């Protein structure tokens, strides 16, 4: 970066929460033990749940198809372990809703060989075939959103994708999943990028990495295969840099229009772990069976980055790593946008990028909520230049329509920066989440009538 670089390669505002990444970013990815019983909910991605194709009592091999995609916006599910389908019943999910799920009991002494499917040949496959392959592999966004990747990669007619953005930002505090993936699975990533370039028709790929992962950036830069149109871009450390829109603005200076998608500015963004997974699975035609999860937080004894089979019950995971006596809250995802777990009987799903355990003393105290003093900290923090202070007051007085019409409520992507900085401890994000859902509901009723 030279002095002549006038446009700072970052977005506006944002916050700097303490990173806490040093505890796990040096720990290599380790295989996690197979749980004796894993539970696979069918709704672990955005879109229609997968449709079960096995029956109770059936024996399955690791990698075998358990459920097929329930529609276009859906993905299939593969067996993460070899074992017997014990039961098909409703299981709890993180959102609190129940979902149909498969209880899979592992064969006691299986070697857990993976079954291969039809490989997708990078050289001969068409873009359509690659997308189909990605869907068949059950790949969803592994950064946390769990949105089916093939849907995102499909460039709508009339639009063009010129840049493929590989998201290796990982701005959430504590999490080091992507960091380790970049350090250990560089080859897979570059293979994945080739598939993705072909699928999207993009001219070049840029890997965006935050400055706190210089080692990963250096490694990837050195390993770029010759002739591949890939560059590595290091951006300043700032939350929520990892949000698609913020990343695009930081790296390319383009702004995704309100209510639009990255493809509206000719960009497709794919998470780096997802890319690695594509690069690893597609040549063998396999489906996802496991993923890298950072297990960390002050309440965890054996912190680390683990390769955990999908469906491993959270209780089993925590038992294995050991948890502090004073455990208070467990989050799936990072502490900024992750969800607090109410029930340990849920499982690790495809979207689980990290598990953070806080003890009593780490949890934000249920501090007294003061009235908004209009200090403007939230205004300085909001990455999309909303006025959370005003929105918060309007939400308190239930002026939802005004929030949406005048103050761009619907553009809020709930990054939590405003709540993080608020000195009055107003649960702004919670207000906005609620307000957004009310506005959405009212809009649908309005359309209906």
């Amino acid at each position, binding site marked *: 970066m030279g002095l002549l670089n006038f446009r700072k390669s970052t977005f506006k505002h944002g916050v700097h929460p303490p990173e806490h990444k040093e505890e796990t970013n040096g720990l290599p990815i380790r295989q996690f033990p197979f749980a004796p019983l894993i539970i696979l909910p069918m709704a672990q991605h955005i879109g229609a749940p997968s449709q079960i194709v096995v029956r109770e009592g059936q024996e399955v091999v690791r990698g075998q198809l358990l459920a097929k995609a329930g529609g276009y916006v859906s993905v299939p599910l593969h067996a993460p372990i070899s074992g017997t389908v014990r039961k098909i019943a409703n299981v709890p999910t993180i959102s609190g809703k129940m979902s149909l799920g498969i209880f899979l009991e592992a064969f006691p002494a299986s070697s857990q060989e993976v079954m291969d499917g039809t490989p997708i040949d990078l050289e001969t496959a068409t873009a359509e075939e690659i997308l189909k392959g990605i869907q068949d592999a059950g790949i969803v966004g592994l950064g946390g959103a769990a949105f089916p990747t093939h849907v995102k990669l499909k460039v709508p007619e009339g639009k063009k994708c010129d840049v493929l953005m590989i998201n290796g930002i990982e701005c959430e505090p504590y999490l080091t999943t992507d960091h380790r993936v970049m350090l250990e699975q560089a080859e897979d990533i570059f293979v994945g990028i080739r598939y993705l370039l072909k699928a999207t028709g993009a001219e070049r790929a840029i890997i965006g990495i935050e400055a706190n992962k210089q080692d990963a950036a250096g490694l990837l830069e050195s390993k770029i295969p010759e002739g591949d149109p890939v560059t590595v871009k290091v951006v300043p450390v700032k939350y929520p840099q990892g949000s698609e829109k913020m990343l695009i603005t930081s790296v390319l200076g383009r702004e995704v229009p309100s209510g639009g998608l990255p493809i509206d500015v000719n960009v497709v963004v794919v998470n780096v772990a997802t890319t690695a997974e594509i690069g690893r699975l597609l040549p063998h035609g396999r489906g996802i069976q496991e993923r890298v999860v950072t297990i960390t937080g002050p309440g965890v004894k054996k912190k680390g980055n683990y390769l955990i089979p999908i469906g491993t019950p959270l209780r089993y995971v925590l038992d294995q790593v050991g948890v502090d006596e004073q455990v208070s809250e467990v989050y799936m995802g990072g502490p900024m946008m992750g969800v607090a777990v109410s029930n340990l009987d849920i499982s690790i799903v495809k979207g689980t990028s990290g598990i953070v355990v806080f003890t009593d003393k780490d949890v934000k105290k249920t501090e007294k909520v003061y*009235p908004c003093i209009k200090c403007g900290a939230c205004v300085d923090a909001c990455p999309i230049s909303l006025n959370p202070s005003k929105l918060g*007051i*309007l939400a*308190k*007085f239930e*002026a939802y329509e005004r929030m949406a019409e005048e103050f761009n409520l619907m553009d809020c992507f709930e990054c939590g920066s405003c709540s993080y900085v608020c000195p009055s401890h107003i649960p702004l994000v919670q207000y906005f989440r609620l307000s957004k859902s009310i506005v959405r509901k009212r809009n649908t009723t309005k359309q209906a009538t």
Partner: protein
Amino acid sequence: MKEESLWYIFINASLINNFVLAYFLGICPFLGVSGKMETATKMGGAVTFVMIISSMCAYGIHALLVAINATFLQLISFIVVIASTVQLVEMFIKKMSPALFRALGIFLPLITTNCAILGLALFQTNKGYGFVESLVYALGAGAGFTLALVLMAGLREQLNFADVPGVVKGTALTLLIAGILSLSFMGFAGLGS
């Protein structure tokens, strides 16, 4: 003796002796339409417009009444002229600019009983202002009225979203804010002397 400068007349009418905050003129519309920014601006504009026209009329009438030595008819002729001016203005705007009429329509009849208009006519006569001075005075008074109305509207819009105690809500709150504004405007005293 020392004539008042036009600049001073303007400052005096708009800031120092603001019609609403110092003379209490036009309090009814001030209380009534200061709830929303949009209506406040439009009302301010309408009042200023009518003020200018009726101020010119009042100047003419006064001159006429003095000429025929019938100043005792001053009040009655002012009020009649203002009422008819408002009517005429209403009709004129309706014909010339229906859009403007839709915007100002409901405010125009209200203006008839706005004491600021009559007050302006009476004050300019009492002060013995000439034609240009009257015009500037009307402009200043209108600007001051609009300023007070707009300031109040901004504050009241903000206070729609505040935990105002139930007893204070409504006219009492508006009056209390008006009092504080009136105090703040005292800072302008002596300006331009």
